[in-house]
C-alpha cells in the first residue's frame, strides 16, 4: 500500500491549511493594498517601522523603485506618521525625525490647526509653543528638511534661528504687554524686531546630506556619492545592486560610501570588522578578517569612499550578499592608480603673473604625489597641451580638486583616465 508510505511521509511535513489560508489572506490584503494604493500602503508600513532606520532605508528604496516620491518631513503638511499628500507623494512622518518627540509634534500641529500653515520661520516661532519645541528640536527640524518651506534654504534657516526665537520672545512679551496695557497708560511701543533671514551661502550638498542622515537616518534628497559619480565608473563597472556571488577564486570590485563600520574582536583576541558600503543603488556588507583589517585599518573609516575588491558569497544568515575584502583603495589611491592626469584648462586671459603664482603655490602644497598635471593652454590663436614635470606630480586629494575649482572655475578642472 504505497499510498500509505507517501501519506506517512507527508504527514510529517503536513501544514495546517486553515492557518495557512487565514494568514495567506493577510498576505493577500497587503499585496492588494500595495498594488492598488501603493502610496498609502508604503506610508503606513513606514509609519509602523518608524524607529527602525534599517527598515526605513529599505522601504524608501522600495518607494524609489516603485516611482513613489518621498518628500522630506514638512511642518506645514506633515503629521507624526508618514502621510500621503494630494499629489500622491509620501510625506515623511515628523515622528521619524530623530530627536523630535511626540510632544513637540503635537505642539506644532496644534498651532497649525488653530491658525493655518506657517508663512515663514518667524511666523512658526511666534505661533508654536517654544517651551515644547526648543532650540535643539528646531535645529533637528531644519536639518531634516522639515522647515524647507519656511525660508530660503537650510543654511539660512539655521543661521536665522536665534533671531527668530528672539523675535518670538519679543512677540510674546508684546502680547502680554498689550493685554496689561488695557488703559493705554504706557505709551512706548515694544521695539519691533526686523524679520529678515540671514544672508549666508547655501550649504554644500555634503553638509545638508549629513544633516539628513543625522535626523532621518538616511540621505533623502541626494547622496554624498553624487559628486564622485563621474569618476567612480572608471574604478568599477559594477553597481552594488548588481553585485553577484563570485566563484571561489573570483573577485569583484565595488565602490561605495562607508555608512557603517562594526569592529569586533574574535576569539583569538584579534580585531576584524564589517564595513557597510552604500552607492545609492544598494548596500553591501564587506568583511575584513584580521589580516586584512590590520593592513587597511588606516583607510577604514565612516563616510569615506572606498574601492574594495574581494570575493562575494551569499550569506544565508543575513539573507544577502557579503564580500570578503582582499584589497582596498581610498579615493586618493584610486585616482593615483586609475587617473591619467588632472587636466587644467588655462586661458590666456587668466594667465597673469598673479594667478599663475597662486596656482603654483597651490600645487606646491600637494607636490610629491603620483598624479600628473596636464595643462591645456588656450590662446585666441592657438592652443597647446603640455604635461608638467614629474617633480610637480601631486597627491590628488579632494581638497586639491576643490581648491583648483575655486581658483580656476568649476569647468576648468577635470580628471582623465587611462
Amino acid at each position, binding site marked *: *500500500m*504505497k*499510498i*500509505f*508510505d*507517501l*501519506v*506517512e*511521509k*507527508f*504527514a*510529517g*511535513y*503536513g*501544514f*495546517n*491549511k*486553515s*492557518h*495557512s*489560508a*487565514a*494568514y*495567506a*489572506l*493577510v*498576505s*493577500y*490584503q*497587503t*499585496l*492588494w*493594498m*500595495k*498594488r*492598488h*494604493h501603493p*502610496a*498609502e*500602503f*508604503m*506610508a*503606513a*508600513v513606514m*509609519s*509602523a517601522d518608524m524607529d527602525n532606520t534599517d527598515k526605513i532605508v*529599505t*522601504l524608501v528604496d*522600495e518607494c524609489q*523603485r*516603485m516611482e513613489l516620491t518621498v518628500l522630506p518631513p514638512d511642518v506645514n503638511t506633515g503629521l507624526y*506618521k508618514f*502621510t*500621503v*499628500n*494630494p499629489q*500622491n507623494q509620501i510625506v515623511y512622518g515628523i515622528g521619524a525625525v530623530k530627536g523630535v518627540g511626540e510632544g513637540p509634534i503635537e505642539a506644532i500641529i496644534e498651532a497649525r490647526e488653530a491658525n493655518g500653515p506657517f508663512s515663514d520661520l518667524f511666523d512658526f516661532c511666534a505661533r508654536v509653543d517654544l517651551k515644547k519645541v526648543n532650540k535643539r528640536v528646531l535645529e533637528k527640524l531644519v536639518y531634516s528638511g522639515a522647515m524647507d518651506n519656511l525660508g530660503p534654504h537650510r543654511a539660512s534657516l539655521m543661521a536665522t534661528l536665534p533671531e527668530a526665537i528672539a523675535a518670538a520672545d519679543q512677540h510674546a512679551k508684546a502680547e502680554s504687554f498689550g493685554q496689561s496695557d488695557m488703559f493705554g497708560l504706557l505709551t512706548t511701543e515694544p521695539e519691533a524686531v526686523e524679520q529678515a533671514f540671514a544672508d549666508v551661502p547655501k550649504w554644500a550638498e555634503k553638509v545638508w546630506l549629513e544633516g539628513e542622515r543625522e535626523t532621518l537616518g538616511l540621505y533623502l534628497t541626494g547622496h554624498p556619492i553624487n559628486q564622485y559619480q563621474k569618476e567612480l565608473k572608471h574604478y568599477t563597472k559594477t553597481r552594488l545592486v548588481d553585485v553577484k556571488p563570485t566563484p571561489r577564486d573570483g573577485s569583484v570590485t565595488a565602490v561605495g560610501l562607508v555608512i557603517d563600520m562594526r569592529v569586533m574582536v574574535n576569539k583569538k583576541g584579534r580585531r576584524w570588522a564589517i564595513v557597510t558600503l552604500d552607492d545609492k543603488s544598494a548596500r553591501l556588507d564587506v568583511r575584513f578578517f584580521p589580516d586584512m583589517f590590520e593592513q587597511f585599518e588606516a583607510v577604514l573609516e565612516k563616510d569615506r569612499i572606498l574601492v574594495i575588491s574581494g570575493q562575494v558569497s551569499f550569506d544565508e544568515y543575513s*539573507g*544577502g550578499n557579503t564580500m570578503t575584502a582582499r584589497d582596498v583603495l581610498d579615493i586618493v589611491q584610486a585616482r593615483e592608480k586609475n587617473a591619467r592626469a588632472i587636466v587644467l584648462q588655462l586661458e590666456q586671459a587668466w594667465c597673469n603673473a598673479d594667478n599663475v603664482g597662486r596656482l603654483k603655490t597651490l600645487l606646491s602644497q600637494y607636490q610629491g604625489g603620483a598624479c600628473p598635471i596636464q595643462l591645456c593652454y588656450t590662446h585666441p590663436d592657438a592652443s597647446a597641451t603640455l604635461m608638467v614635470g614629474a617633480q610637480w606630480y601631486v597627491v590628488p586629494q579632494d581638497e586639491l580638486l576643490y581648491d583648483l575649482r575655486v581658483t580656476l572655475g568649476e569647468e576648468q578642472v577635470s580628471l582623465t583616465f587611462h
Partner: protein
Amino acid sequence: MADPQFVHLRVHSDFSMRDGLNKVKPILGKVKALNMPAVAITDQMNFCGLVRFYSEAHALGIKPIVGADIWVKSDELEDQLFRLTLLASNNAGYQNITLLISRAYQRGFHPDRPVVDKSWLVEHREGVLILSGGREGDLGIALTKGNQDMAQHILDFYQQHFSDAYYLELMRTGRAGEDEYLHRAIDVAERYGLPVVATNEVCFIEPQAFDAHEVRVCIHDGFTLEDSRRPKRYSEQQYLRSAEEMAALFADIPEALENTVEIAKRCNVTIRLGEYFLPNFPTGDLSIEDFLVKKSEEGLEERLEFLFPDPQLRAEKRPEYDERLAIELQVINQMGFPGYFLIVMEFIQWSKDNGIPVGPGRGSGAGSLVAYALKITDLDPLEFDLLFERFLNPERVSMPDFDVDFCMDRRDEVIDHVAELYGREAVSQIITFGTMAAKAVVRDVGRVLGHSYGFVDRISKLIPGDPGMTLAKAFEVEPRLPELYDQDEEVRDLIDMARTLEGVTRNAGKHAGGVVIAPTKITDFAALYCDDEGRNPVTQFDKNDVETAGLVKFDFLGLRTLTIIQWALDMVKQTKGLDIDITAIPLDDLPSYKMLQNAETTAVFQLESRGMKDLIKRLKPDTFEDIIALVALFRPGPLQSGMVDNFIDRKHGREEISYPDAEYQHECLKEILEPTYGIILYQEQVMQIAQVMAGYSLGGADLLRRAMGKKNPRRWPSSAPLSKAVQKITASTATWR
C-alpha cells in the same frame, strides 16, 4: 503499609521563586520512594504549582495537602514581617487561602513583597489550619525576644480565632536559635495545651543539593557566595528527610510527629480538574444553543449574499452550506461550546464596531463555517477545503481554540472591554514562568561563584542564543564547551552547578495575550498574582494549568500588519475618499498577482524575505490557493525534501500531474489533491485521504493525523469504522522507523 510515622507539611518547590529548588514531580517521586502517604507543598505566597501537584500526587497515590507559606504583618510586630504556613482542611479552606494570597497581591507589595494582614486571617479562617512558623512566626519572634506580654497577646489571638487549628511548629535543621526556641515553644505548648508539629522546612530533595540551593538564593538576592554580608538562612539539613530520620530526630517529642499524620488526615481538599466552566453569554429568551443557531443562520445568509450575489447561483450553492452549517452547529452544541463561539463573536464584533482591526483567526478556526458565518473568520472554508474537524473534533473532546489577532496598539482595549462586559473579577490574564535558561544560568552561577566577567563571558558566549537552547544541546553543537569542561576545573564546577539549576523557575510574568473569563469570579478557580503595584492581575496557574482548573482561555494576539492595513485604509479614505472593505476585496485580482509574480513583495506580509522572493519567482503564483501553498512550502522540510521542486514543476507543466504519484495513481484522490497539483501538502489533505481511502470519519482521520505526527502507531485510533483498513495500514508499517 504500616501506620505512617511522619508527613512533610512544609515543602517548597521551585515555585517558591526565592528558595525552592526542585520541581513538583521529583519531589513527589521522592515522597513516593520514601513511602510517605501524603505531603504538603507549601510554596511562598502562591499556588502556582498546585494543579500539577494535585494531579500528579493523585496519579502516584499520594495524598496532596493543599497549603501555602505566607508572609504576614501584624500590629504587634509592626514592620517586622513574619511567616506562617496555612493548610486547607477542606475546600472552604482552599478557597480562603486563595483569597488571602490574591488579596495580598492585589494590594501591591508591602513594602517589597506581597503580605497578608494578620487581621485578614480572621475573615478567612474557615477550613484553614495554621502552623506557627517556628522561629520566624510571630509567636516564635516574641518567644525569641523573651517578650512574655507579646507572646501572650499573640496566643490569645490564635486561641480565640483558631482554636484547634493552630499548631506550634518545631524544627531541628541545625540553624542558630532553633533549640532555644524549641524549648520555649514546648513550654508554651504545655502551659496552654497547644498541639506541636514537626516540620523540616524542606527547600530541596537531597542534602547534597544544599550548595546549589545556596546559589539559587544568591541569584535571587543578588549576593555572591563569598559575600560576608550575605544572610545565611538555610542549612543543609533542609532536605526531604525520611520518616525514620524525622522519627529519630523527634524521638523525644513523639506528639510532634503524630500530629503531622493527624493534620494530613484532617486535610481533605478536592479540586475539580479537567472540567471546563464557560462564562455565561446573555441570550435573552432563547437557550444558548438556539441563540447560536439563530445567529449562525442569519450570518450565513449574509455571507451567501456576499459570496453569490446571483440569486440563482446562490440557490444552487445553498444546500451545501446549509448542510455543513447544520452539522457544525450540532457538534458545537453537543460538545457544549455554543457559549465559546458567542463570546468570541461578541468581542470580535465589538472590535470591528470600534475600529480595532481584527485578524482572520490564527490556528484552525478558519475551518469552521459557523465561525465564518459569525464573522469570527473571513474566509469561506468550503471554497478552500478547510475542515471543521481540524478545528473541533467530535471524537476528541478538547476546548476549541480561536487565536485571534488584533491590532497591537489596541489589543488592551479589547481585553478591557471583555473585563467590563463579564465583570472585572471574572476576567484575568495568565501567568507565565521564566526559567533559568542555559546562557543565563551560566552567567548567574558564574557571578555568584565570584568569577570575573571575562571568564563567565567566555563560556556563556559559546552557548548559542537560540530559544529552547539547553546546556546539553550546547555541548553537542559547540565542541569547545566539552573541551573547556574537560580542561578547566573551574569551568567544570561552574557548568555542573549550572546544570543543577538549569530550568529552575526564576520569575513570573504575564503571558502575552492569554485571557481567561470565569462564569463567576477568577478566584473561584485560581489565585491571583499581580505586579508590585497590585495591578495587571494574572492567574497563578499557567496557560495549561488554568485550563485544567476549569477556566476557558481566549488568546488575544497582537499582529502589527493589521495596524498597517488599517492605517493605509484610513489614509485612502482621507486622500481619495474611498471606503474600502478590506475583507471584501476580490481574491482574483490580476494586477496584484502580476506584482506578486515579479516578487515585488517588500513589505508584503510573510512574503518579503529574500528566500521567499526566490520561491515566488520560481513558483509564479497566480491563484489564492498558490499563496496558501507558498507559506506551507517555505519551510525546511518541504524545501529539502524536493517537494517544492515537484510542486513547481507540476504547476508549470514540466512534470506530469498525478494523484499523487506517477507509479500509483488514485483517481479518487484527484479532487483532494487538485489544488496542490497532486502533492500532499496539508494536514487537511491527509485527513481527507484517510477518509476516502480507509473510510475514516474526518474526526477519526484527525486522530490518525495526530498519531502520525507523533510517530506512534500504537496510539492510532482503532475505533474507526473500517477497522480492517486500519489493520491493513498498520500492518504495512512494520518497517516503521
